[in-house]
Structures are given as structure tokens and as C-alpha cells.
């Protein structure tokens, strides 16, 4: 389509049809003052700050809402425009408090900034200002000063359009308008913190950060979020070597201009009281602070002793999937140099059938930016909103346009997006449901039905999903975290591949953690005869090297992990925090978290992002790559003389082109569909968003949110009735261990299932994340 020629402030610019005057001006780099306009939100045109002069228009026009037309002439800084803008500013300031020195937003307030340019030096009003009462919006957002609100409705539109849930609204009318949440409700969206950034004034501010520092006292450093597979870009703001606040760094191809609340508020965990600051050695059951030298020498000595006594393969290493590429690489180099292939980072995985059968490193299967362009999507086994808050937002926005989102999952949580079709099945039947979809597509397209799925009976839900997928041009199939943690993960992988091939589409993994793809790149997994994360615990080792994890929370079977580690002769835990697991260790070495070390994370789309430490390590904590380097040297392993983390990274990546090595294909996985006939209750586990890793577990404000509530035993009322249970009652859950939990009712759960969250101390004694479970009245 032909472009439109527009003249703004005497300069010509070409814009496409449908562009606004605001966009034309922005394209020329001309700033038009504005409050309600935001490039990622719908147009509201309610603040009127963007008034400009347009040729042949009798009145000033709002640039954000005026469509550009061919030959249009616009003046953004003419006398007429400026008079209009100043008039609007005077209106806005009638009721806005003029006490910037005591406002938390002072110094980073768009109203303050624009008032300097467009406001008068005195006010013509001496009437009393309007007072708006403060609101309680929960532990993250402070709405203490709602008199400052200028009713731009950015916060409301963000909820509706990006977060997918309208938690804030504007009640009343005219000068009685107020921003509120519904009577007595807190704001619970996992993306809510973005409203703080969007609010152009000091009405919505960060509750944890409020009044703890001034914006101009903070230095700003770039970083990468370690909390999910997206690799959101962050600006970490620090004062006196302490992280005070985290905000997004715009990266259109990853996090756009948003971050999740987990990325934003997890920093409180960095400053936790439980941070370890000194190496410690256990002597006769009591902890003693020691020097690094002594601690590391002790570790080396003990490892050598155990190797001599029992062989190197009695030593195992479990590495957190949040660890950096450098840390993972050095850990495996150390283990292999020492003679053991027992190393793994896939701590919550239980089925390793695909090992040795992969053609490459598992990944998303496409660029993140291309998600929006898919017209048909199937997401299998994902607590999408909580596991991947920002990927969910991309699907949400696409689902409002032309994308059909189909879901196969074990729970029917509200994803806040337009779900076209869904099949909610008990966990043990997840592969069968995927198989049914394959069969339905084969039948509808008159293709030969793959023998593995031929015996399945196709239910209506599968047929509907198949019809949706088959009707698209650009389909995509995604396996979520639960699918990767599933006891038949290998089969799910093979089935997704079969489906994608049949559809001529892409398939991939949403990615369990920040460095899940990086772990494969670093070869931080058994490559030969070594034991994987499950086997290392099933067949207990004599010694364990634990890096960055809390095994009683971060493993697939925490009960087994605690037991194996408890029995070991020697355990060294390289960790940032004191915890029960650290108590089981013989040596604990204080690890610098992501803000205190340089490193690299490879996100789900295979993009490798390196970052620097933003503050000095707390106390004597040290970056992981340095700890491992010294340990490697003490053990006399060759090639541990790196002088920077970059040198480690370069060695880890080598001359390979990573993007060419990404591939989700597996060959030779045997499929046995339709054979599972486990009766009785089955456990469904989710990893709740604010229990997912050691840092967020210690972020105080996040722990007060509704997503961090004490886990319950969720079941349908049918299950509860059959067991004679009522909501709120106590039940004893028995797996390989037991736990006592409160009953919660959720009728959207599939029949014969009980949902019990993982990654929480109250449930860690139970056993594996999946499998049979029994429930008794406590």
C-alpha cells in the first residue's frame, strides 16, 4: 500500500496507512509530550497532553489519536500547540499535589518532567485540592498516594491487554474518578509490577522499594534474569553495593518492555539474611567458619580420598539449571577431569530416554518473536502463566488476533487467553492424548496412521484440537515444563516431533530454566556411562558436589535426594544460602548469585547473553567460576588457568555456531501408548512461581502474594466426596513419604488426581512429582 506523506514541524516523513500523528512525529525523533499514550497499549486519548496544531483543523488535535493523512501538516511546537499543551498541564496540576520533594516518584516522574517544560511557575488556583484515599493493592504495588493519579488509565489498559486480567478499573466520573481494584481484592497478576513502570506519576509505586532510595542516588547496570527461560533483560539499580530495585531493559525480541514480577521483585532474596558469607566446615557436627584456602583444600583432599577408596564414579555432581554457562562448563570439566561422568543439571526431570538419541540441543524450536506469527498452536503440559509469564503474554496477544491456542494439560488453570480447544487429562494419559491428536490428523488428511498411535481411541477433544491444528498454515507445538518433568518425557518429545512433521510445523520446548539450553551446550550432563540426575540419587553416591541448588526443593524426588545426600560420606555444597540441605553438607562454600558474578545464560531460543556482576559479592562469597577454577587446580586437573569468565565462555562455546546445533529431534524412542492403566489417585505437581528457585524463595514481598500461599492438596469435589473430605480439612498424603496438608477444592482438575505443589518444604517429604498417591483423613 502506498505510504502517506506527512509534514511534521516542517520535516517530511513517510508513514503507513493507519499510523497516527504521534507515530509520524516519533519516526522523526520529535518528542510530543504525552501521558496516556504508550506504544504497547491501546489508544485512550484521555490525558490530552499531546495536543498539536494540524493544518486546516480548527482546534488542536491529540497526536496519539489522530490518524495521519496524506499531505497533512502538523506543528508540535508552534505557539498554538504550546498554548494548548500548557493549558492541559494547568488542568492536570489543579488537583495534582505539588509536593514532589516528598513523593517517591520525584526525579523519575513524567508529570514532574513535563511540568518543568509546560507548567506555570505559580498556580492560579487557591481552592483546596481533591483528596483520594489510598488503596491496598497487595504486597507488591503501593497505592498509598492515589491523589497523584492523573487518570491516564495506562494501568487499567495494561491489565486488560497484556496481563489478560482487569484487576484495576476507574470508578466514578469526572473529577470523582478513582483507580481501584474491586472491593477488597489485591492485584495478583504475575505481571503486575509493570504497572509501576507505566504509571507516569507517583500514584503506583513499588512497595518494597518505596522510600528506600532516590532515583538519582542509584547506579544502573545491565543484567539478565535467571528466573525463567526467556532471559529477560534487566536494569539493576544499586546503591552502596546493594541491589535496591530491578526494572526492565527494553529488548523487543525477548521481554519487549516488560518483566515478570518474579524478575522484578526477586532481588529481595539477594539481600536475604540467609545469605552465606563465609566458607564453612563441619567438624564433629558443628559448623566452623574457615578460610577459602582451608575449605577448598579440605574439599580436594576428601574428594581424592574418596576416589582412591571407592573410585571416581562414586562421586556425583548436581548443578542448578540457573547456573551460568561458565559454571556448568567448569563443573563438568572438573568432574570429567577427575574421572567421573556423573553430572547433571536437569534436576526436575525424571525420564532420560532421549539421552543419546538427540540430534542437537533442545530449544524453543523458533525465535521468540516468531511466536506471534503462528496461526495454530498446541501447548502440551505447561502451567504457562506461572512458568513463563511473558511467553504467556505473547500467546495471549496473538490469541486475540489470528492464533488458535490449543491446550493439552493436566490442570485447567485460567491462562487468561483465548483458548480455542483444550483436553485436560490425568498426567499418566498425557502422551495418549497427544497420540490421539496425531491419529485424528492422520485420519482427516488420509495419511497412514503411525502404528504407535493406531490403537488409540480418538476422543472429541482430540478431534477438535486436530481440526484446529490442521486448518492452519503456520502451526507450532510446544512442550511445557510439566511435559519435560513427566515420567514419559521422551515419548512426549517423540510424539510432538511426529505431530509437527505431520503438520509441517515447528516444535520445541518452552524451557524449564534460565540456562536449560545452556546446560546442553556446556555438556553438563552424562555423555558416556555416567549417571543422570535421577540415577545419581537412586543409586546413592559416596560424595556429592552440589552447585546452587537446594536438593530438598529443586529435585524431581526431593525425598530421595535428601536421603541419598544424607547418607553420603562427603558433601560439598556451593550455594548462596543457608538451608536444611546445606546442613547436610560437610563443607559449604558461599556462592555469588547472578548479580555478583559475570557469566552467560543461553535462553530458550538459543540466544547467549553474557552479563557482568553488578555489585561486589556479599562477604566472602565468590563467583562460581572462580571457585571451580581453584578447585580444579587443587585437584591437579589440567586446563584450569582461566583469567576471566569470558575465557571460560569462549572455551565452552568453541568455534561452534550454536544456532546450528539447536535441534529437538530424537530418534529411536520406543512408544508404548495405551498401556498405562494405573488405577487410583495420581499426583499432579506444579512448581509454583515463587517457589521456583533459591533466590525467589527468599524474596519477602513475593512470598506474601497469593501465588506463594501454603500448598494445599487440591482435588475435585468428586474425589473429596468419595474420601469423605471437605475443603479446609486436613489430610494425610502418602507417597513414598507423607505430608499433612489442607484440602482445597478445584473442580477443573481431571478425575482421580490430586494436585500437590512441588518445591515447598511442606511437600518435599512426599516423593516424586508424579505417580500414585493416597489421601487419608488426618
Amino acid at each position, binding site marked *: 500500500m502506498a505510504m502517506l506523506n506527512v509534514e511534521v514541524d516542517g520535516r517530511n516523513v513517510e508513514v503507513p496507512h493507519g499510523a497516527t500523528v504521534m507515530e509520524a512525529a516519533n519516526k522523526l525523533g520529535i518528542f510530543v509530550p504525552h501521558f496516556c499514550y504508550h506504544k504497547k497499549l491501546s489508544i485512550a486519548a484521555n490525558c490530552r497532553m499531546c495536543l498539536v496544531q494540524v493544518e486546516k483543523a480548527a482546534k488542536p488535535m491529540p497526536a496519539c489519536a489522530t490518524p495521519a493523512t496524506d499531505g497533512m501538516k502538523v506543528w508540535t511546537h508552534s505557539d498554538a500547540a504550546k498554548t494548548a499543551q500548557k493549558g492541559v498541564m494547568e488542568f492536570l496540576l489543579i488537583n495534582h499535589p505539588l509536593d514532589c520533594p516528598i513523593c517517591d516518584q520525584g526525579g523519575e516522574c513524567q508529570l514532574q518532567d513535563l511540568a518543568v517544560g509546560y507548567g506555570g511557575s505559580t498556580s492560579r488556583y487557591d481552592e483546596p485540592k481533591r483528596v483520594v484515599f489510598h488503596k491496598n493493592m497487595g504486597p507488591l504495588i503501593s497505592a498509598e498516594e492515589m491523589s497523584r493519579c492523573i487518570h491516564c488509565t495506562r494501568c487499567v489498559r495494561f491489565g486488560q491487554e497484556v496481563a489478560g486480567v482487569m484487576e484495576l478499573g476507574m470508578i466514578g466520573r469526572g473529577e470523582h474518578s478513582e483507580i481501584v481494584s474491586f*472491593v477488597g481484592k489485591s492485584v495478583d497478576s504475575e505481571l503486575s509490577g509493570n504497572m509501576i513502570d507505566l504509571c507516569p506519576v507517583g500514584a503506583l509505586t513499588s512497595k518494597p522499594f518505596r522510600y528506600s532510595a532516590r532515583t538519582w542516588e542509584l547506579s544502573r547496570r545491565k543484567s539478565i534474569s535467571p528466573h525463567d527461560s526467556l532471559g529477560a533483560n534487566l536494569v539493576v539499580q544499586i546503591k552502596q553495593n546493594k541491589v535496591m530495585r530491578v526494572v526492565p531493559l527494553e529488548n523487543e525480541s525477548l521481554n519487549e518492555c516488560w518483566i515478570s514480577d518474579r524478575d522484578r521483585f526477586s532481588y529481595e532474596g539477594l539481600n536475604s539474611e540467609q545469605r552465606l558469607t563465609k566458607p564453612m566446615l563441619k567438624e564433629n557436627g558443628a559448623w566452623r567458619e574457615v578460610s577459602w584456602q582451608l575449605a577448598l583444600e579440605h574439599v580436594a583432599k576428601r574428594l581424592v580420598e574418596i576416589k582412591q577408596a571407592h573410585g571416581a564414579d562414586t562421586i556425583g555432581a548436581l548443578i542448578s539449571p540457573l547456573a551460568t554457562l561458565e559454571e556448568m562448563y567448569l563443573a563438568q570439566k572438573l568432574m570429567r577431569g577427575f574421572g567421573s561422568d556423573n553430572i547433571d543439571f536437569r534436576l526436575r526431570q525424571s525420564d532420560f530416554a532421549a539421552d543419546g538419541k538427540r540430534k542437537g540441543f533442545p530449544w524453543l524450536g523458533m525465535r521468540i518473536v516468531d511466536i506471534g506469527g503462528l496461526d495454530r498452536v498446541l501447548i502440551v503440559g505447561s502451567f504457562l502463566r506461572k512458568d513463563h509469564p511473558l511467553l504467556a503474554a505473547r500467546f495471549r496477544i496473538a490469541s486475540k488476533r489470528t492464533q488458535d491456542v490449543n491446550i493439552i494439560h493436566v490442570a485447567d488453570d485460567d491462562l487468561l487467553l483465548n483458548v480455542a480447544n483444550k483436553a485436560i487429562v490425568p498426567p499418566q494419559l498425557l502422551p495418549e492424548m497427544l497420540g490421539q491428536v496425531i491419529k485424528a490428523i492422520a485420519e482427516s488428511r488420509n495419511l497412514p496412521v503411525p502404528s504407535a498411535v493406531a490403537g488409540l481411541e480418538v476422543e472429541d477433544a482430540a478431534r477438535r484440537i486436530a481440526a484446529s491444528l490442521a486448518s492452519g498454515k503456520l502451526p507450532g507445538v510446544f512442550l511445557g515444563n510439566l511435559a519435560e518433568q513427566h515420567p514419559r518425557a521422551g515419548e512426549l518429545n517423540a510424539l510432538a516431533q511426529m505431530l509437527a512433521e505431520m503438520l509441517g510445523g515447528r516444535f520445541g520446548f518452552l524451557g524449564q530454566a534460565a540456562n536449560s539450553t545452556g546446560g546442553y551446550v556446556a555438556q553438563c550432563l552424562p555423555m558416556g556411562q555416567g549417571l543422570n540426575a535421577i540415577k545419581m540419587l537412586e543409586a546413592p553416591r559416596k560424595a556429592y558436589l552440589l552447585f546452587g541448588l537446594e536438593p530438598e526443593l529443586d529435585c524431581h524426588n526431593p525425598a530421595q535426594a535428601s536421603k541419598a545426600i544424607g547418607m553420603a560420606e562427603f558433601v560439598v555444597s556451593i550455594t548462596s544460602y543457608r538451608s536444611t540441605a546445606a546442613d547436610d553438607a560437610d563443607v559449604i562454600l558461599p556462592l555469588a548469585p547472578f548479580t555478583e558474578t559475570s557469566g552467560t545464560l543461553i535462553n530458550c531460543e538459543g540466544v547467549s547473553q553474557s552479563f557482568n556482576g553488578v555489585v561486589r559479592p556479599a562477604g566472602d562469597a565468590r563467583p562460581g567460576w572462580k571457585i571451580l577454577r581453584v578447585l580444579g587446580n587443587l585437584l591437579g586437573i589440567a586446563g584450569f588457568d582461566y583469567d576471566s569468565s569470558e575465557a571460560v565462555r569462549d572455551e565452552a562455546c568453541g568455534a561452534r555456531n550454536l544456532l546450528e546445533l539447536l535441534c529437538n529431534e530424537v530418534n529411536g524412542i520406543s512408544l508404548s501408548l495405551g498401556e498405562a492403566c494405573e488405577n487410583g489417585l495420581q499426583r499432579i505437581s506444579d512448581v509454583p512461581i515463587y517457589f521456583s528457585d533459591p533466590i525467589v524463595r527468599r524474596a519477602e514481598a513475593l512470598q506474601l502474594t497469593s501465588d506463594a500461599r501454603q500448598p494445599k492438596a487440591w482435588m475435585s469435589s468428586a474425589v473429596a466426596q468419595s474420601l469423605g473430605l471437605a475443603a479446609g480439612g486436613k489430610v494425610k498424603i502418602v507417597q513414598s513419604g507423607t505430608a499433612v496438608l489442607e484440602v482445597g477444592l478445584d473442580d477443573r482438575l481431571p478425575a482421580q488426581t490430586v494436585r500437590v505443589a512441588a518445591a515447598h518444604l511442606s511437600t518435599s517429604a512426599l516423593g516424586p512429582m508424579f505417580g500414585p498417591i493416597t489421601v487419608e483423613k488426618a
Partner: protein
Amino acid sequence: MSPQINAPVLSVEALTKIDREIAKYPLDQKQSAVMAALIVAQDEKGWLAPETMDFIANYLGMPSVAVYEVATFYNMYNLQQTGRFKLTICTCLPCGLQGALAAADHLKKQLGIDFNETTADGQFTLKEGECMGACAMAPVVLVNNKRMCDYMSVEKLDALVAELRNSSPQKV
């Protein structure tokens, strides 16, 4: 994650009326019926309690706060319990210029209450209203959103109050 089951707050008759309103709009635009649904609910309950609005939100598949926005925008919706009779007097400029303010003062004195208050016996609530499209007949008083009284002189106001006070409890 905490599914809440909403016990119906409204009677079957009220729900039937709401269903009739919903039927006027396309299936995927149920929320267009929100204003009508709120009127039905208020007629039955006398006012719109949070749980009533929450119920309607669920019933129409829209966010609670969006219902709240509508209910607070229009001042004929009662967000608090009112007395048996809600008297709304228009105090907009045209009425104001034609004696509405004096009429309001008279009512306040007679009832012994200010705007947004209810008499101790629970009979009357006094409200300030916006233009009712009857500016030529000022002052105007609206009784319980349904009955419009115009040219409200002091005598007619007193007569109205007396009539309502003596009306049988069933009759609204």
C-alpha cells in the same frame, strides 16, 4: 487457583429478566447487558452490594471491577443501602438557577438530613442528581429512580414527603 463457586445472589425471576436482556446482544457480547442487569438486581435488592456486583460480573463473564466501573459511573445505581424512599433532586445548573438549591435546602430541613444521608427512621435518603432532561420543570425530584415529580414548590415538597411517609409499607 482458588476456584470460587458463586451462590446465586438473585431470584429466579430476576435471572430470567437478565437472561432476556442478554438475549438482545450477540452471544460473545453478554457484557452489553450489564446496565440492564444492574437495574434488575437493584430493583430486587434495593442496592448493589459488592457480592451482587461480583455475581453479575460472573454471570456476564466480565471482570468484577468493570461492573464496578459502570455501577459507579451512573448515580442512579445505589452503592449503599438507602432508606425506603430515595429522593434525588437535580442540582445541575439550569435547575440550580430555578430554585433547586432552595428546594434542596427545604428538603434537608424538613427531613433533618444532608445529601447522602438517611433519616434515622430509615424512611428517606436524600441524593443530589444530574440533569434529568426536565430542566423546564425545575425543581425536579425523582422518587426511587422511577417516579418523577416536577415544579417542586415548598408546598408540593411537603405534600410529597407527607404522602410517602403515610404510604403503606408495601407500596413503593
